[in-house]
């Protein structure tokens, strides 16, 4: 489809004898929010890693914005505007929140001068703005490693926004977040999609969260694509319920 920002076509990934991803295909339309669900061990994070180039795939192709990226490496793909957040939340622990944001500026068009000079005021301004957006402005000068887990997750999200990606792969964004704050996080995700135009592909275990977020959902089980559809269809699909309740 010509308006698909991301096309995953028949991707297979094996680790030793285990087939983590078996012939997975999915599409993410530009400007959309797509969900990826499935029980633990179904291959969701592996698929993310395959997409961003973290490991080579055994077969299949991946296209981003029309370009084939199957054989490209992580930094190249990231500079094309395809970012991911990590399940275990990765940030630069020994740097302050602001510094984390400063270094998360888009690196694809960095001139030699910019490489060596201080961050210009508009970058700092944007960093402050995004930190406010996620509610971390008051903590911006603390070391990132000193923040709580939930705060680090928000920082990681803000850093991703700072990079102005076209497509953002979020790996369980609500995991470990205080339940009272989850709705606020979902709101921010929806706003980043609506206002900043960022396409989202989200792995989630929290069903309520993903039903609010996504317009289209793919469900994986045992490394294979089980089914796909709208949130309503997925919710009522007995196979999906089976996959979660039936165990491995």
């Amino acid at each position: 489809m010509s308006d698909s920002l991301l096309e995953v076509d028949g991707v297979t990934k094996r680790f030793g004898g285990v087939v983590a991803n078996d012939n997975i295909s999915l599409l993410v339309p530009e400007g959309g929010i797509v969900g990826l669900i499935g029980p633990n061990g179904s291959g969701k994070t592996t698929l993310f890693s395959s997409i961003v180039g973290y490991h080579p795939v055994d077969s299949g192709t991946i296209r981003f914005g029309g370009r084939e990226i199957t054989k490209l490496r992580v930094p190249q793909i990231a500079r094309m505007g395809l970012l991911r957040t990590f399940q275990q939340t990765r940030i630069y622990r020994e740097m302050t929140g602001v510094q984390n944001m400063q270094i998360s500026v888009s690196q694809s068009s960095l001139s030699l001068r910019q490489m060596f000079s201080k961050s210009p005021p508009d970058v700092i301004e944007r960093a402050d703005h995004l930190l406010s957006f996620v509610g971390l402005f008051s903590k911006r000068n603390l070391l990132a490693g000193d923040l709580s887990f939930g705060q680090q997750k928000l920082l990681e999200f803000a850093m991703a926004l700072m990079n102005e990606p076209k497509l953002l792969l979020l790996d369980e964004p609500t995991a470990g977040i205080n339940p009272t704050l989850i709705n606020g996080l979902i709101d921010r995700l929806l706003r980043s999609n609506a206002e900043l135009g960022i396409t989202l592909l989200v792995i989630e275990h929290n069903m309520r969260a993903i039903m609010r977020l996504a317009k289209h959902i793919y469900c994986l089980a045992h490394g294979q694509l089980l089914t796909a559809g709208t949130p309503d269809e997925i919710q009522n699909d007995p196979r999906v319920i089976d996959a979660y309740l039936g165990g491995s």
Partner: protein
Amino acid sequence: MSSVWKYVAYSGVIAISVVAPWALPAYQTQLAFLWVMVLLALTWDLVGGQMGYTSFGNIVFFGLGMYVTAVVQRNMHFGIEEYVHVAGAVETLTPQEYITGLFVGLGASGIAGVVLAGILGACLLATGMRGQYFGICTLGLGIAAGELASGWEYIGAGSGLVTPVFPEGLGQRGLFFYYIFFLLTLMLFLTLGWLYSGHFGLAINAIRDDEDKAEAMGIHTTRYKIIAWCLSAFFLSVAGGGVGHLVGFIDPTEVAFAGATFGVWMILMAILGGKGTLWGPVIGAVIFHFTQELFWTYLFGWQRVVMGAFIVGIVVFFPRGIMGWAGDRWPERFGHRTTG
């Protein structure tokens, strides 16, 4: 620290540095070496402390520079063969010849260092060698360099190389080299200060904190790694060239590629003072150099044993170093804020 006090402190340090060799003429050579130590610590910290790539082989550039300067200077005025073996008095150069030869040699050393760093960077850094393996690989390089130099006749093999005698008419040798090393180190310090305060500093810190994350955010990690290493190499090579001339004699394993001494000390000094900070390596080098002199005077051979114990002690019990400790103790002054 407020700006006024900062300027006062900096001016004070510079003033003392300029005056010191005149005030303490008997210690000129030791003071000259003090600056070399500061340089060793700062260059190591750039790659090791700020960027997280523990190199055990930076000495390679130091030794390379030492030999390159000597060979270039020699070939400019005399045939190399005349200086290859330690053999009594050698021809002396006129002050002009000495200086031109020295500076051309130092320039050549700088270039050679950058070229070697570029090649090694392409083999090690660009291909993604990290952590312990990078450390061990550089260790192997450092020692292999010394062993290979010990076997190469052109540069004197195991017997080493003698550098030209410091000519009459240029004043005291210690004084002359003191200022060379002082200016070189000052240049390094200012360059690093500038780099660390900008985007480059953030990038290498990001690489240190989480290189995978940095790559996932699109940062050109390879570029930064190689630039950092080349920068270190440049200053190390030039310093090496100078040291060879200050000492007067280049021995492949004891002086040039002295991995077991200089190579380890540079790491120790940076950690002692606080790695990953601008002033840490400086403080560490100063303390280390002075204690080393004391140890040598009172302990002789046992000095090295104590050094070994020192390394273990610092690394295990005091890994954050002085600046790290200061940053924890007085976070507002030296470290990071603990409240928003």
